[in-house]
């Protein structure tokens, strides 16, 4: 069975801060990490190896040269080989152009059974590349996947999160799965022996020329959406503290504030 895991290296947006004077993002010193949703997707795809025989996991990413370290991390987590898809021509890609580029790479890799990816990236937050990639590959998709089980007949049992609980779905390859980790998920930190093994695994770098395809569909030119402006959202004001020395008084004061609030008036 051939699994392809798509990942993205992202800035750690929980560490990003906004400059209070210029209202721009302070990106300096923000570490680049493997997108946490993709980290879970890679670990889940590697877990498939425990469930059935003869599984190989190829991990791919579209990104700049430094995205190599995210791929190395995936190799240390147990993926078998990696492909870095990198070219200046891919810069400025929106989700459609990204999905197109990834689909070319996957078609070049050849026959595959399952595509794993994270539900969304913590910088873009769109959750669009997965389904758009599935469409371009012409395969079904399941999003919001929390758990994947497979049997020897390659029947997949999927635990999918819904707003009100979850669903159990069944399907067979080929399929694209977009994963999001359960709250119990503890990301693995690979020990040195896994890192040393990762260094020995096959690592390819493909540029636009190697991929082939229609160049007009790459990067900014191939993007249907355009960002015309970015700005920081207005900051909330200071917190008004209510003194709590007298509990009853504090509760009374807070209730007065709430009673005047439109949410209560219109409830």
């Amino acid at each position, binding site marked *: 069975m051939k699994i392809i895991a798509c990942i993205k290296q992202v800035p750690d947006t929980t560490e990003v801060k906004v400059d209070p004077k210029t209202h721009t993002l302070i990106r300096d010193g923000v570490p680049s990490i493997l997108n946490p949703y993709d980290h879970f997707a890679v670990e889940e795809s590697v877990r498939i190896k425990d469930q059935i025989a003869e599984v190989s996991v190829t991990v791919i990413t579209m990104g700049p040269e430094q995205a190599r*370290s995210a791929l*190395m*991390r995936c190799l*240390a987590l147990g993926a078998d080989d990696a492909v870095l898809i990198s070219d200046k021509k891919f810069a400025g890609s929106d989700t459609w152009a990204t999905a197109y580029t990834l689909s070319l790479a996957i078609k070049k890799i050849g026959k595959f059974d399952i595509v794993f990816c994270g539900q969304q990236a913590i910088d873009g937050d769109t959750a669009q590349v997965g389904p758009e990639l599935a469409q371009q590959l012409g395969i079904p998709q399941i999003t919001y996947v929390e758990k994947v089980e497979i049997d020897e007949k390659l029947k997949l049992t999927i635990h999918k999160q819904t707003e009100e609980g979850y669903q159990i779905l069944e399907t067979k390859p080929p399929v694209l799965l977009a994963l999001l980790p359960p709250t119990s998920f*503890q*990301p693995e*930190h*690979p*020990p*040195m*022996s896994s*890192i*040393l093994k*990762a*260094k020995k695994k096959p690592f390819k770098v493909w540029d636009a020329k190697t991929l082939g395809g229609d160049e007009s569909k790459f990067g900014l030119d191939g993007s249907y959406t355009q960002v015309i402006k970015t700005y920081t959202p207005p900051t909330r004001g200071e917190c008004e503290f209510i003194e709590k020395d007298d509990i009853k008084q504090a509760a009374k004061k807070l209730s007065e504030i709430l009673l005047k609030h439109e949410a209560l008036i219109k409830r």
Partner: protein
Amino acid sequence: MVDYRFSEEQELFRESMKEFCKSEIVPKTEKLANVRRMPEEIIKALAKFELLGMVIDPEYGGLGTDVVTAGIAAEELARADPSCAIPVLFLVGTSWGHTIDKYGTEEAKKEILPKAIKGEQIIGIATTESDIGSDLGSMKTKISKKGNKYVINGEKMYISGVAEAMEYGGGHVTLAKMTPEKGTRGMCLFYLPLKGTKGITPTYVEDIGREAISCGGFDIKNVEISNHYLLGEENKGFYYVHEGYELARGLIALVCVGAASKALENGIAYIKERKAFGRHIGKYEGIQFKLAENYVRIQALRELAYKALWTYDQEIQGKASRFEVSMAIAMAKSVASIWACEAINDVMQWQGAFGYTKECEDQKAWRGVRSFTLAEGSTEIMKLIIARELLGKEFLAYR
């Protein structure tokens, strides 16, 4: 120009190490206050992350990495546990495990190393005695042959990990005199198992820092050990022990870097928050000068330390001499504790009265790094080594 970069594996390892420390070490440091014995779960956590056999031959379950990579582990562990207890467990096990790996008999290596790497037993170092530290040639502990055994009599004191070895299992790489009239040329280095050995009577003292690892000593009365525990050849122990000391010293320098760096981070956060006389104290020149001076020293120490460990690796590959290694290591260790203490002391001072209370985290770091002016070789001896290299043997002090 010199390529100062770490290798890709080393960078990946450091990243993974930081995450390991954040999720598995830092939360456990709360349990370390005053326990006087390393909790078993921490030893197991280190073993699980493959930290206890980093430089040991894979044949015995180790990773066989270079010592610079071990240095990365030391630095990050110290950042996570600035009290230095866990880093000490790591560096002592690493250095003296390496010595056993290099000089031990096959039988001894197979018996000791796999278990130590799995966290099932401890490896420590015991050379100091109540009356001797730097002057190893004057030690009182004696070892003599008895058929296919050795008999040892004497005592060791101010030794880390005695309680851990007595309780969990393991022993200490020990130095003793075989041929007293030959002085330092008549000493043996050997492995002395502690748990269950007849004639070993432990005693304990309370260090002012590094509380989570025990400090103590043991009386050695007619203790018999099998001769397969000898390391290297008889009477050459003084030379072997220095190789072990040097690796330990290099790792210690990085432990000082890690602990001091964490303290400086704490200090920076504090001076950005605290106000006095209407402005953040971080805006005052006096504070800024201290910050800059300490930062430069710690970064310089970091360079010296990694260069020293790199030189140690070079010697293993046959590309550097014994003396080059001794010099590089001595340089790093000669300033490590003092500079770290000064940085942490300044961080405590910035915090005023709070810095003098037990609630302040940084005072733990100070008490931890303060030990390194003496552990594994005193600062004074480091300076003598440096001077010896510069002046030549004829100028050896106390000759």
